[in-house]
């Protein structure tokens, strides 16, 4: 019976297009619709979206490389934010930086914080992978076979990491007062500089990852490991090491995402959970396991969420990402850039 209901790729696109048009019509009909609000919706949507995209990128990278979904990824995002904040508090009251660079100390400190988050989360990710996830593959078969155990372990890790963070930093939301300068005027819109930082740094991280994967020897090895562990082993790639590297890179990117969000919102122990869920929605919307798809999915979820809370109802802000995910799964189950499993590298 269900075979008769199956629609082809063209049909999927037509139905999805209809949904998009309906949605746009709904938004245009809203009383708040004008060019000013549209501008701010787009900028906020893009800046939030790139954060979802970065976390989704990590989830997709781990999924391609290790064949498991990492449900503790939001916690790496949260600890990354705390790592950046800790560095900021260390450097923030050092006079010599201020004396050395009186004009630019704010963003120099911020860049150091981003770098700290990147490196420390990378190392932390490798540590977690080696100590907590790798032993689960002892029985043989690697991550592909041990998959379900590792997914459950991810949930457990998430709880443990939240509670460890709770012990260290306590549950009070902390401000991240990076001094990045006054809001800038772009196209008649006054934007906080942090939004621009988010978009610029986020896109450069994504571009850097693309370059790393496609143009370097190590990237070639990572793509090979993502496709087949056995064949990669047989061409002389140290597969266990590369799996650690993949996990580390994914966590490092999540850490940068956390530090990018910090100055705009606040740094709090429970920030990882909702980001994980929304990044998951972004990854599904873009096509699970597809890296450019993760970024596009992040932007889509970000803009959809912001536009909906502006024009439809602001009181259900966290709902829209999952609504979009459900609609995409119903109409276009592969996501925007659906990949065949065989071609995922």
């Amino acid at each position, binding site marked *: 019976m269900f075979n008769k209901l199956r629609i082809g790729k063209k049909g999927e696109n037509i139905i999805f297009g209809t949904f998009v048009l309906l949605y746009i019509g709904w938004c245009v009909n809203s009383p708040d619709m004008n060019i000013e609000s549209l501008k701010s919706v787009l900028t906020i949507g893009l800046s939030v979206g790139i954060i979802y995209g970065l976390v989704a990128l990590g989830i997709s990278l781990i999924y391609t490389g290790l064949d498991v979904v990492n449900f503790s990824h939001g916690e790496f995002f949260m600890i990354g934010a705390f790592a950046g904040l800790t560095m900021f508090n260390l450097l923030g009251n050092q006079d010599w930086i201020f004396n050395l660079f009186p004009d630019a100390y704010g963003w120099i400190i911020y860049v150091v914080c981003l770098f700290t988050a990147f490196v420390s989360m990378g190392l932390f990710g490798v540590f977690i992978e080696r100590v907590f996830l790798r032993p689960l593959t002892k029985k043989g078969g690697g991550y592909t076979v041990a998959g379900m155990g590792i997914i459950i372990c991810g949930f457990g890790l998430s709880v443990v990491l939240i509670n460890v963070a709770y012990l260290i930093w306590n549950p009070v939301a902390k401000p991240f007062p990076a001094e990045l300068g006054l809001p800038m005027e772009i196209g008649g819109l006054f934007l906080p500089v942090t939004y621009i930082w988010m978009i610029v740094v986020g896109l450069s991280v994504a571009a850097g990852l693309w370059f790393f994967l496609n143009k370097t020897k190590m990237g070639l090895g990572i793509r090979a490991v993502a496709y087949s562990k056995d*064949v990669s082993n047989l061409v002389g790639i140290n597969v266990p090491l590369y799996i650690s590297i993949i996990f580390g890179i994914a966590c490092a990117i999540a850490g940068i995402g956390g530090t990018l969000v910090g100055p705009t919102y606040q740094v709090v122990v429970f920030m990882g959970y909702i980001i994980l869920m929304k990044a998951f929605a972004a990854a599904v919307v873009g096509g699970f396991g597809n890296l450019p798809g993760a970024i596009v999915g992040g932007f889509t979820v970000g803009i959809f969420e912001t536009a909906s809370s502006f024009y439809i109802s602001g009181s259900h802000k966290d709902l829209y990402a999952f609504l979009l995910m459900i609609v995409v799964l119903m109409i276009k189950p592969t996501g925007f850039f659906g990949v065949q499993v*065989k071609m995922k590298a």
Partner: protein
Amino acid sequence: MLKIDQLISGYGSVQILNGANMKAEKQSIVALLGGNGTGKSTILRAASGLIRSWKGTIEFNGEQIQNLPAHEIVGRGLVQVTQGKDVFPAMSVTENLKLGGFILKSKQQLSDNLEKVYNYFPRLNERKDQLAATLSGGELQMLCIGRGLMSNPKMIMLDEPSAALAPQIVLDIFKNINRIRQDGLTVLVVEQNVRMALLLADYGYVIKDGVINVEGDSKKLMYDESVKESYLGGTKANV
């Protein structure tokens, strides 16, 4: 070159090899024959480090290599070419070949080896910018063998190079295997195509139930009754 002594191994708790012995002399072609599920591929997987050897030794170039990590075995010059055209379909032919030379340190050596492989298989040179997914079965097999040759191996082990290929292409590939041997490599061929494999090889082993059943000069094995028996499941049939 390669010496396998009383090898016992398997998957999980299922024992497949029950003490296999075999040897490959330098610059020779050795054929390993046997029906389905007799342990041919398991010997190769144990030798190249993809599965653990439970007991017994594998000696390569005078050093024991059993239970070394697979990438270190590749580094020592023992390379397995997997069964079933296992290439990276989303990468171009050149990228696939470059992956084969992953352990090489210098760029110069990589391009030299690339040249060498294109020399063996001119067909790959014509297709070098195509995605590997678009190649034909014969070209995929050439790509697999070429990828194995990229890392300057001393010995390569081929797992069923003739599987699912047209006879003309099988002949072409076997000619190339002979050329590879003449250039100084040792070759171990696992085959189900008994006649072709024995024509090519100097020495043959027939494996049955995880032990080497018959061995001998390939000319002699060609007319051996027990070889036929191994392939027809123990009962003598009138062929």
